[in-house]
């Protein structure tokens, strides 16, 4: 009985891995690790957008000030959100590790 359960879990894990391998950039993430990876990429993208907007405003004066401020705010908020998600994940992990088996 227990062996059946363990075999079932192993089965789903294998199919998950297979699913992730066949995914391309365009399809929405179906695994959790993919969602996390996309979120990290999004945050990185926003940080780079903010840098670009700052460069535009400061050097050569080719950008609008409000675009730079909005880009900075978006980068800051998305980064702090990711930080909080990371904190919660670690808390959850520690909670699980504390469980008496």
């Amino acid at each position, binding site marked *: 009985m227990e062996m059946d359960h363990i075999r079932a879990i192993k089965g789903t894990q294998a199919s998950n891995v297979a699913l992730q391998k066949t995914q391309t950039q365009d399809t929405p993430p179906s695994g959790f690790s993919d969602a996390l990876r996309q979120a990290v990429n999004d945050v990185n993208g926003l940080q780079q957008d903010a840098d670009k907007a700052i460069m535009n405003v400061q050097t050569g*004066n080719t950008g609008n000030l409000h675009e730079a401020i909005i880009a900075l705010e978006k980068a800051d908020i998305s980064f702090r959100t990711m930080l909080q998600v990371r904190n919660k994940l670690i808390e959850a992990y520690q909670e699980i590790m504390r469980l008496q088996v």
Partner: protein
Amino acid sequence: MTSFKICGSGLAAQRAKMDVITSNLANVGTTRTAEGGPYKRKAVALTAEGIESHFDSTIKDALKTVKIEGVTEDPNAVKTVYDPAHPDADANGNVALPNINVVTEMADMIMASRAYEACVTAFDATKNMTLKTLEMGR
């Protein structure tokens, strides 16, 4: 930043206008000048000049700074008045005086002053908007 530049050019242009108007008013009775003859009424010609280096292509054509084209002299600058007692009267007693109407010059001065104030208001609005944008994240 473009707005500040445009406002600055407007302020400079209106100030130049004021300078020329006060010069006209001061010289309303001047009959002797370095070039000979009476002082000639002057006016400032302003043109709108496009901004080539603006980054935003959608509005680039609509934005212009104002440039002082030059100071022109009025072609009807001289009026002749009969005044034999004047030191510069000619043989017939006529004096060539500048054709400057004080009332017209005062009206021009008020207009230039109002236009200057309008540019100052535009400058203040720009500054206020910029500062407000900066405190958006606070």
